[in-house]
């Protein structure tokens, strides 16, 4: 009788799911969406240049993505083929080679015993931050590949340089909007763009911007230390811009200046490592980037500090 009652009680408890065999522990596999969500959230904040360039999906086989170059049509009187629409000196193809980039985090089971969901969110944030930075840097290093350069080493940025860049983009018939991606030192240092509001009477300063009235760029600068749009460009500050000594290479670009080719989007993989008693969480993606139209991008090499 006693055994019968024990077995009956056990059956009832199992049916309720709270004894022997039932568990409420969250597995790490179930938390993969948590890691992915955290990674994507961080990436959205840190991907500064990616939204400003052409994004192309490249699924399937192949590791080199080619885009043929079509020169701007100009009126030509010469019947010579070399002088017509497709210029013989113009590079014919923009080629982006796919690369495998990722980050991996090892989560010890000792740390996971607290809260799997929380630790996976942390892992996802770390991986997302690392991958987004790698992506942004890959795009920023392309700025130095533009053959047109408005500045030089040990040269400070002036307003006229921005006008020169705008002039270059317009002459190239680049499609707007134009974006100006600068190092924070280009904007806020003592040799930066914000000094143009100083009360100095020369071609490099625009003191009347501060007195421009409600809604002016000067008001934005005085209140927020930043103006999102200046002299025809949407301005972005990106610390991932390549820095050499005290100089940094930003760029004036349009959508067609650079292309970002996505081979396989971001993915989280989890593998248990028995000998280390933990899980290896890896976030990876395949992508490639290249200059799409060299004639529609302008490097801005200037000082970031006095």
């Amino acid at each position, binding site marked *: 009788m006693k055994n019968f009652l024990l077995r009956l009680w056990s059956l009832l408890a199992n049916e309720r799911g709270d004894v022997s065999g039932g568990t409420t522990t969250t597995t790490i596999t179930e938390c993969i969406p948590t890691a992915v969500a955290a990674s994507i959230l961080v990436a959205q904040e840190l991907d500064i240049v990616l939204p400003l360039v052409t994004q192309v999906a490249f699924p399937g086989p192949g590791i080199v993505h080619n885009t043929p170059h079509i020169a701007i049509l100009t009126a030509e009187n010469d019947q010579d083929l070399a002088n017509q629409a497709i210029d013989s000196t113009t590079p014919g193809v923009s*080629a982006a080679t796919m690369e495998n980039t*990722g980050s*991996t985090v090892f989560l010890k089971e*000792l740390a996971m015993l607290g809260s799997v969901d929380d*630790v996976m969110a942390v892992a996802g944030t770390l991986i997302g931050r690392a991958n987004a930075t790698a992506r942004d840097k890959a795009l920023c290093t392309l700025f130095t*590949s533009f*053959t047109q350069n408005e500045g030089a080493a040990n040269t400070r940025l002036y307003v*006229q340089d921005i006008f020169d860049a705008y002039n270059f983009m317009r002459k190239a018939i680049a499609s707007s909007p134009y974006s100006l991606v600068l190092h924070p030192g280009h904007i806020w240092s003592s040799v930066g763009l914000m000094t143009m509001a100083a009360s100095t009477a020369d071609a490099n300063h625009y003191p009347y911007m501060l007195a421009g009235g409600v809604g002016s760029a000067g008001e934005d600068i005085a209140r927020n230390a930043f103006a999102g749009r200046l002299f025809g460009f949407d301005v972005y500050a990106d610390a991932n811009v390549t820095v050499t000594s005290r100089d940094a290479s930003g760029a004036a670009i349009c959508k067609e200046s650079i292309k970002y080719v996505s081979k396989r989007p971001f993915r989280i993989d989890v593998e248990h490592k028995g000998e280390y008693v933990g899980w290896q969480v890896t976030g990876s993606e395949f992508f490639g980037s290249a*200059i799409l139209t060299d004639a529609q991008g302008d490097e801005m090499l200037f000082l970031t500090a006095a």
Partner: protein
Amino acid sequence: MGRPKKIEGEIQTLTSEEVALMRKEISELREQVKSQRPEPFEEIRKASIKNQTGGQQITLKHFTDHRKVSLYHTNGFHIGKKIGPLHPGLLEQTFVNFKNKGIVLSVTCPTATEIEEYKKTDEYKQFAHSQNNNKLHRNKKISNTETEKVIAGFAKLIGVKPEEAIQLRPQEAVLK
């Protein structure tokens, strides 16, 4: 009953000279003991530095399947300037783009001596002339030549320097 004078004198001598010596010996002993006995928090700090692993640490490693390459200008106005670092698959396109503009790139950065020698050549002067012409506006003062002539003439008439002729005096100097 008081102590004998002689004994009192000895105690006084002990108090004034040997006590000073005793104090000195005690302080030295304290320093010696202190140096031999490790400070607990200092040892904990050293141990925490040596302890590189722990259940609460999460180490992130970044990986790629390639190594990036940097290129350098070997001629032109920006000789010695670095390009990149770039993915190896982009090198050919970059070489062609710059060659079309007359710039030769190299994986090796030119030395300071080579740069100095190149800057004496006519080719560099040609590049520099083109660059400077585009940037002649730098530090250009906004000025009206005709206005300056009038001010100079007026200043000469009243016998002062041109900058003094248009100089605004402080309010206190005017109202005095």
